[in-house]
């Protein structure tokens, strides 16, 4: 791997007396899907907020972008660099149509300062085509879309800013099987287009399906960095829970089979 697009090293973040992150290292490269794993309270969301500029990191750490040190102290900084964040609650306006949502806050205008709907609809079609997303009409309110389609629209919207790193917070939580597959397809397409993807998920099946690498946090510290292809489910769980002795591996030893009976491969 060449120079990572985004690299963080020695990042710490304290909230009052709580040290949410201490000395965390993280990097993501072009065309790479990195899963960020950890138990509740491990610091995943804090790390995402540090990267997205919502909570600037404490001094001491170094963030580099394309090898150059940068500082991210506000969401605008992160956007300017080319980092897009898609939060769990999708932040779409149900009453607006797909085109309206895609371009919300970033509308294309033409001569007398009016909305250029033709241009916006064309570009929306191009964008969705490039992601192989098929939605019959771009002029229906997003309230009428399925959960997976809504997630896809939310992701597509973040791509209009031509980001190089996309962070997805639990993109498949609350989605059905088919919709999850749609979103995973989309994540693979983002990777194929050369974007770095940071994926937070509790769903190990999803992680194993699309991620190239898994970064595990535990109690605010790095607890492992595993290439997915060469790592077993048990190793990752052990890193997440902080012990080789955990219910999953115990059960695996007892039954003598892979603990991941539900694994999708």
């Amino acid at each position, binding site marked *: 791997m060449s120079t990572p697009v985004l690299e963080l090293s020695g990042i710490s973040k304290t909230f009052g007396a709580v040290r949410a992150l201490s000395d965390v290292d993280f990097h993501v490269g072009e065309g790479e899907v990195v899963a960020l794993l950890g138990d509740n309270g491990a610091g995943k969301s804090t790390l995402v907020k540090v990267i997205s500029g919502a909570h600037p990191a404490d001094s001491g750490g170094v963030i580099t972008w394309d090898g150059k040190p940068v500082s991210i102290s506000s969401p605008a900084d992160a956007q300017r660099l080319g980092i897009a964040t898609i939060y769990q609650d999708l932040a779409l*306006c149900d009453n607006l149509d797909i085109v*309206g949502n895609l371009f919300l806050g970033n509308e294309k205008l033409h001569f007398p300062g*009016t909305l250029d709907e033709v241009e916006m609809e*064309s570009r929306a079609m191009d964008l969705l085509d490039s992601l192989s997303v098929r939605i*019959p009409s771009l002029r229906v309110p997003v309230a009428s879309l399925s959960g997976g389609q809504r997630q896809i629209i939310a992701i597509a919207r973040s791509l209009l800013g031509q980001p190089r790193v996309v962070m997805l917070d639990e993109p498949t939580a609350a989605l059905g099987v088919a919709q999850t597959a749609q979103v995973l397809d989309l994540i693979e397409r983002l990777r194929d287009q050369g974007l770095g993807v940071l994926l937070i998920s509790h769903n190990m099946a999803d992680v194993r399906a699309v991620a190239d690498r898994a970064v595990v946090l535990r109690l605010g510290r790095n607890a492992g960095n595993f290439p997915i292809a060469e790592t077993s489910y048990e190793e990752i769980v052990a890193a997440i829970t902080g012990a080789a002795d955990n219910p999953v591996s115990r059960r695996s030893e007892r039954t003598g089979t892979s603990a991941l009976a539900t694994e999708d491969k």
Partner: protein
Amino acid sequence: MTQQTPVSKAPAPGGAEPAGPRRDPRLLATVASPKGWLEAFKRNVRGGELGAMPVILGLILIAVVFQSANDRFLSPQNLSNLSVQIAAIGLMTTGVIMVLLLGEIDLSIGSVAGLSAAVLAVLAVKQGLPEPAAIAAALGMGLLVGLLHGFVFAKLGVPAFVVTLAGLLGWQGLHLYLMGADGTINTSPNGAIALLTQTFFVPFMGWAIAGLALALYVVSVAVVERRRRQAGLPYKPPVEILFRAVLLALPILGGVWVLNQYKGVPLAFLIFVGFVVVLDLVLRKTRYGRMVYAVGGNAEAARRAGINVDWIRISVFGIASTLAALGGIILTSRNFAASVSTGGGEELMMAIAAAVIGGTSLFGGRGNAYSALLGGLVLGAIASGLLLLQMSTSVRFMITAAVLLIAVILDAASRRGRKTHARGGA
């Protein structure tokens, strides 16, 4: 946006052939013929996309009922009076619609209208200010009041209901205080204020304005559809544009013709319709309008998209109160006087009822400026018809209540329709 034509209505030229390579094959094509339009229309009705249809049917029903009870109802004189009568409350409705689109409510518009009438009369009559200056001052006062409401609501976080409830009381108090002991201040019967409702355009002007508006509509729609066609997007063929233009021309030209039978198109009505059209264009065609709908639909999403939500809220309350003040000025003009009761009666209730009857949702994000015109016409027609039948206000209130309920029930039913037909139930 809800008022945008669904793409499914954009037909392929010549019927079965797809309009272009980018057209999704799952979209039902509408054949560009009366039969095709009827099919699309039926589809929309089943899907709960009723649009303005229930209100227009209601208006026709009202016209038929009152005309058969009293044949003066549809006389040019009565319709001309009606058009002037609805202007004041209609302007207030237009402002309320902006606030309703945000999902908020403005209870103070009646009091602001009264305050504006008082400011106008005091400045013009007691202080001897030139009438146009007094009008400008009253409007400016309305803007300031609205910005204050918006500031307290958006920046200090007081619910809009409470802010404007305080406004309802407070501005009425100031109104009474300004009016002093007299109770009524008569304005000049031939100044600029009176001219607002006493001006009627000669027939030629009425036709010219209507013709210009129609021509602008056809040209702008044709230009947009041509661009859509060149961009490979679903578009409406010229036949359909023409069909729509004819549908639009019927009420406009018919209205001008009827009004010309009496004194001509009244200035007050033109001001009202003008504000409705301008506001509609602002809401549908500008970034500001898109922001208003976005804030009404999901304020958090709007904030994350970089929209200054506070500023949108403050400005919308400013617009609402300015339009309420304009309504108060028109009320003064029609009565040749401002009194302690101006704006203090049914105006608030009627303005909100008109917005809802016209099809604007109370929950934000859904509705359009034309609700003010349609809802205002319904309420005005009921009032005017019952007056002709010499019924008292009591009957009018009860009938208005029934119409309001029917409108809301229809809205709820159509929302269910939209949900089951996957068009969004918001």
